[in-house]
């Protein structure tokens, strides 16, 4: 049954991808991208990779769709006719695809318990992590503790992204006060969003702090919290959103999240362990691991939230400016 579901989902994925290639209306393309991400999230669920599915749904289908829509507001919704020849790119794509298929010919049998991925490093994670790290969610154990350095790196990648966006666009405050921003006249939207926003923030906090026990963690929580504020900005307009959290403050927040994460590492060095060795954070190693993971996840959440919202601000303020002109 699971295989049948996989086949159906993969077929839908391929159809979506093909449609994306041939569509000229970029608005529809963005919507299809969202569908594509949801379909991949479903496939991940089917593979029992709920954490990955959660991330894909919140980041791939959620926030990226919003950011791409704001980009369309700045640029335009029709694809320009390409003047380049398509033969060489097609050739490169075909060769790459053929190489990938060739590579899978010797692939270990799908899902077999004797596969190298299940035999080498993974058994230790599965058998020892409840004792060594003490968390029921092994994905969080690997992500935040065994490979915590990677996660610090990923947080810095997110931080680098906002540096890039700010240097290209910058967040500009609109000077005109009488400018109609947001959707103030839509009363229904107003009321509904006022009910939804606190719930979304509450859910984000739940995802943030429940990541040790179930799917979730800083990345997803940060994105969900950012979504709540983006909704607020969309409905009430950017100036009002700026009054709640300003762009400059978000810059500091993004930096503070990275620093919070790194400071855990520095503290563990001060305590005599290696960088990011959470065992040294408390007298009891398991408690130390728990403290460490909670703090670094918080750092991730803060950075991701601040970066996503700031990128939205940067795009949104540009789009508003281009609308005025």
């Amino acid at each position: 049954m699971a295989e049948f579901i996989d086949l159906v989902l993969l077929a839908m994925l391929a159809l979506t991808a093909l449609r994306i290639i041939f569509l000229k209306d970029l608005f529809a393309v963005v919507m299809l991208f969202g569908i594509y991400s949801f379909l991949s999230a479903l496939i991940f669920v089917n593979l029992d990779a709920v954490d990955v599915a959660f991330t894909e749904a919140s980041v791939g289908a959620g926030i990226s769709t919003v950011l791409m829509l704001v980009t369309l507001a700045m640029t335009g919704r029709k694809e320009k006719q390409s003047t380049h020849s398509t033969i060489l790119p097609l050739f490169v794509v075909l060769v790459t695809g053929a190489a990938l298929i060739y590579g899978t010919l010797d692939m270990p049998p799908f899902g077999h318990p004797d596969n190298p991925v299940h035999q080498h490093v993974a058994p230790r994670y599965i058998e020892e992590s409840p004792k060594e790290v003490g968390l029921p969610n092994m994905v969080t154990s690997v992500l935040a503790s065994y490979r915590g350095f990677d996660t610090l790196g990923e947080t810095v990648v997110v931080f680098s992204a906002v540096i890039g966006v700010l240097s290209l666009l910058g967040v500009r405050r609109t000077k005109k006060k009488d400018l109609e921003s947001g959707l103030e006249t839509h009363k229904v939207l107003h009321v509904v969003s006022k009910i939804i926003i606190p719930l979304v923030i509450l859910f984000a906090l739940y995802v943030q702090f429940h990541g040790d026990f179930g799917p979730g963690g800083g990345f997803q929580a940060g994105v969900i919290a950012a979504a709540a504020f983006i909704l607020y900005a969309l409905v009430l307009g950017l100036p009002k959103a700026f009054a709640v959290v300003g762009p400059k403050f978000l810059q500091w927040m993004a930096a503070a999240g990275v620093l919070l994460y790194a400071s855990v590492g520095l503290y563990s060095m001060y305590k005599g362990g290696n960088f990011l060795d959470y065992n040294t954070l408390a007298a009891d190693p398991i408690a130390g691991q728990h403290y460490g993971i909670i703090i670094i996840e918080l750092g991730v959440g803060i950075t991701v939230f601040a970066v996503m919202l700031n990128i939205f601000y940067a795009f949104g303020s540009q789009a508003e400016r281009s609308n005025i002109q």
Partner: protein
Amino acid sequence: MLEQHLTALPIILPLIAAPIALILGRSVLSWGFATLASGLAFLFSWQLLSAALSEGVISYAVGGWAPPWGIELRVDAANAFVLLAVTAISTLVLVYSKDSIEKEVKAANHSLFYTAHLLCLAGLSGILITGDAFNLFVFLEISSLATYTLVSLASDRRCLTAAFRYLVMGTIGATFILIGVGLLYMKTGTLNMMDLAVRIDAYDSSRTINTGLAFIMVGVSIKLALFPLHMWLPPAYTHAPSAVTAFLASTATKVAVYVMIRFIFTVFGIDHVFVDMGMGLILMALAVVAIFKCSYMATVQSNVKTVLAYSSVAQIGYMILGLSLVSVTGLMASMIHIFNHALMKGALFMAVGAVFYRVGSVDIKAFAGLGRKMPLTMAAFTIAGLSIIGVPLTAGFVSKWYLVTAALEQGNWTVAALVLIGSLFAIVYIGRILEAAYFQKLPESRSSENIKEISWLMLVPMWVLVIANIYFGVDTSLTTEAANSASEWLFQTNNILENNMVEGNSQEVSS
């Protein structure tokens, strides 16, 4: 305490300094802070190199988890040597950039510039030090995102197209590397490089492993701008701010060359890559074409930054040529050239940036008559240019010397001759600029402008590199010792790993 963490500090220091530089906000403050952080990273990597030369290999388990379960940082002579060059250039460029970016980057973006520079440095150090294939990808992403940002910071609008092109190509390269690492993981179940090396041997002829090798090689080749995947490089180097070009030209592509060396010699093994897959001949052919095609392209450009950018692609050809010879001397020549080329290109691009600062253009015509007006800058350009050509008593001569020796060791007269002929092109493209600077008169229209020598803050880092070019051309003990032990070490680990396979099968090296 510092002793124990020496391995991790060159990554952690700029990584933590970057967000702080953003918070500081003010241009001068973040400049001073960034320079301090980079300078400290340089001191640590100096100590790291001497430790690596005496102890061989230093391993550091991040988070206290032993490899392959946790992430290992692993320093040996090879990466410590490149790290030294990267941190040194970064520090010098930061000193130089204070005045240089005043002219080329909007004032509001100055703290973003220093933050991005530190992020790039952290990424490059991470790529060099890490002993974990996936961790390498993460740091590659950090450094790449930071470089796209740095390129796009110029006030010249054309930098945006250049940065976008660089972003598209760079992302394809990074994705290819990720796919390759994924395929390796699928077949071996590990991400640690030493562990991968042991376990890959068991599947030598597997299609999955070979496809992984192909994807990683193509991905890295894009990153290091190997001909014909170099098309992103000339526009990016031409339109980026001068300080950025000086930094990237002397570090980013070199680090990618190191990644290629690491994957070939440590992870996949020489026999697999060169004997079974025949990559040696492919790399050698591409390197030779790169040297000739791009040296020729350099001679016909009118923008001096483009000239030097094409020259960089040609010089990368020399590095790849060295490693494709598959000998200790050849690899040593590559390592020396990575180091020396950083010194030359750093100095050259700094001199060009100085000309832009005063004249406002980097067209070859703008150089006319500058030999008298900016004597120190043009003298620096001349010496670094002679080093690119490979004149004796400069660092460039040492690189070419070892490359030719390596070719002759194998009786490969053709390669030796090609290296020497390639240098003739360098005489042409450097000569054209020197001719304009020293033998042409300052145009009438410009004689009223007040063109004078630049500030000492820009001159000092430039001249430090120029003196280094001469120093390492005369006293080669540091470069040859480090490069030699790096190269011998790479061959040695390769042999140990292969012998291990013959004797004890999949014995864990790490445990």
